[in-house]
């Protein structure tokens, strides 16, 4: 096991720069998730750690060693690919044994390691099968088995659950997390799904257009997003953003669209009249008589909670309630955000105020 250090790493394909100086420190044994929308450079960064893409600038360390010019096989990393990349002409056992065979490990050791990995993943009965004879979830497990037998310094996962159906994805998510708690191998996991990131990570790296927007523990990102992008990306349903102005004379307030007055816990006097963006998560609304008037458009019960889409001052917002209110479309209600849980962002820079 080892730490991974990423220092000012840049990547350009020809003249197109896709990663603009990324710094991330991944501690020994940590489960770090790189998350961001398509094209944010997260997979490219992972492939640079693996050695499948060369590094245009900066440096990557695995343990104490700078690996910029170290070929993949000498980096002692194992990777799980999105399409699993199982060797179709090899059985499950041979797939898992391949790296050990290349390394020239003795047969007894290979058998023992493959057996151990198969036991961990419950693949014992499938060892003689070929990948085509496996279901999606089984293939996913074999891909992980192939990584486990290597006992590498770092596990790299490139969107490993994207090809699974929703139910299996949730199940495998738990399995991967359990596996990490058991093996404690440093893990870098790439996904575009913020729920995967939130549920699995010790530390999340939010990337956007080739830069890191914020690094932190899942709840840290949820509670104090540094900017509009992180605020909108983390959390589902997404945070509501209302544009307007801060009113700081006397009682701190936010003047939202259509003159709607929304509460603020505090606001420095200097910010009076400043254009700002008021962010509030759907689950942080309550129904209160002194709330802003809202007209319900759509009601979406999910069982555990009920989400409503409502118009506040002409703008759509989403609110979610655990309680079972009897909402009807067209009904007027008064929504009040919890002022302590409100996020305020600068109207021009999008940075947290």
């Amino acid at each position: 096991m080892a730490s991974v250090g990423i220092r000012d790493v840049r990547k350009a394909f020809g003249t197109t720069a896709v990663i603009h100086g990324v710094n991330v420190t991944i501690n020994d044994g940590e489960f770090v998730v790189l998350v961001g929308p398509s094209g944010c450079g997260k997979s490219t960064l992972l492939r640079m750690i693996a050695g499948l893409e060369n590094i245009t600038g900066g440096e990557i360390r695995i343990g104490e060693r700078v690996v910029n010019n170290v070929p993949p096989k000498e980096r002692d990393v194992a990777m799980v690919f999105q399409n699993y990349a199982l060797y179709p002409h090899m059985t499950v056992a041979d797939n898992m044994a391949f790296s050990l065979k290349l390394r020239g490990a003795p047969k007894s050791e290979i058998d023992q390691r493959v057996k151990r990995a198969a036991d961990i993943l419950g693949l014992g009965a499938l060892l003689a099968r070929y990948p085509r004879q496996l279901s999606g979830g089984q293939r996913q497990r074999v891909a992980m088995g192939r990584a486990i037998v290597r006992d590498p310094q770092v596990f790299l996962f490139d969107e490993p659950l994207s090809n699974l159906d929703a139910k299996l994805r949730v199940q495998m998510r738990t399995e991967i997390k359990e596996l990490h708690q058991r093996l404690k191998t440093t893990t870098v996991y790439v996904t575009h799904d913020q729920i995967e990131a939130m549920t699995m990570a010790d530390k999340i790296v939010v990337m956007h257009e080739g830069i890191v927007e914020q690094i932190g523990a899942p709840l840290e990102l949820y509670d104090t997003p540094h900017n509009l992008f992180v605020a909108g990306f983390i959390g589902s349903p997404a945070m509501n953003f209302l544009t307007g102005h801060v009113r700081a004379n006397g009682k701190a307030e936010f003047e939202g669209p259509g003159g709607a007055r929304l509460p603020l816990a505090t606001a420095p006097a200097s910010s009076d009249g400043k254009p700002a963006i008021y962010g509030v998560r759907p689950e942080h609304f309550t129904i209160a008589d002194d709330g802003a008037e809202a007209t319900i458009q759509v009601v979406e019960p999910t069982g555990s909670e009920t989400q409503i889409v409502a118009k506040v001052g002409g703008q759509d917002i989403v609110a979610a309630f655990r309680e079972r209110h009897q909402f009807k479309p067209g009904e007027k209600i008064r929504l009040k955000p919890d002022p302590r849980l409100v996020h305020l962002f600068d109207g021009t820079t999008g940075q947290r105020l």
Partner: protein
Amino acid sequence: MTDAVIRTKAIMSEPSLWDRLMTNRNWLGFWFMLPAAAFLILFLAYPLGLGIWLSFTDARLGRGGVFVGLENYEFLSDDPTFWLTVFNTILYTTVASTIKFAVGLYLALLLNERLPFKAIIRAVVLIPFIVPTVLSAIAFWWLFDPQFSIISWSLMKLGLITQYINFLGDPWNARWSVIFANIWRGVPFVAITLLAGLQTVSPSLYEAATIDGATPWQNFRYITYPLLTPIIAVVMTFSVLFTFTDFQLIWVMTRGGPVNATHLMATYSYQRAIMSGYLGEGSAIATAMIPFLLGAILVSWFGLQRRKWQQGEDND
């Protein structure tokens, strides 16, 4: 109401036998197959059957023969020229196919890499395949000409040889020369087909293997080659069949000479049957090729059998 029922019944009466034959699912398949089957029977099965029949007769050009049993074959078994052509054909096929495979595979691997001007190079590789065989044979005939050969001329100028090489006049020189021409012509087919096969291999397999510690050679040995075997089997079967039955190249370049050194079974058959008029004997030579060709097909048929890893969701 009753009227209506009766009228509907009349309309829905049993369709005629012909209508049923035209619309029945099983018969429909037969109808669709008929044109192709007729074509194959007329232009493939009939000539093949006729050829085999002729080989059991003493037919000559302009004279229908009578059945003579295995007489033609008995005659051939004592004909040293026939055995020479068998030797030539096997040598020609083995050497040319082997080299075509090796060079074709090499080119395919090369073209599968990131290369500058890849599209142009791929197109260039196909040129020998596009040029009509007779045209390229004539070009080679000139290249190998005893007096005007540019190869001999170049080597002379370089001071590597002291007299012009008798490419097509010496038996072994002639054999290697026609083999060379055949390889030149056959490589693109092998290369392009194998390239198509290579492109079906997912790049992530190579990435996975590279991370697993495979060297470029091990990537080829354990990933590329096993995944390519089904296509290799197809392409090599075709290559062997085409080479074994080659006619045009030899006929234009050497006509089987010198002293039958480059006669293949196909050219010898043509010479005996058409040039000399012994249709029965010529047919027997041609028919004698069938066991060799069947052998090649059988080898590839077993090679082509779906391997276990290609099979579907069967458990076990």
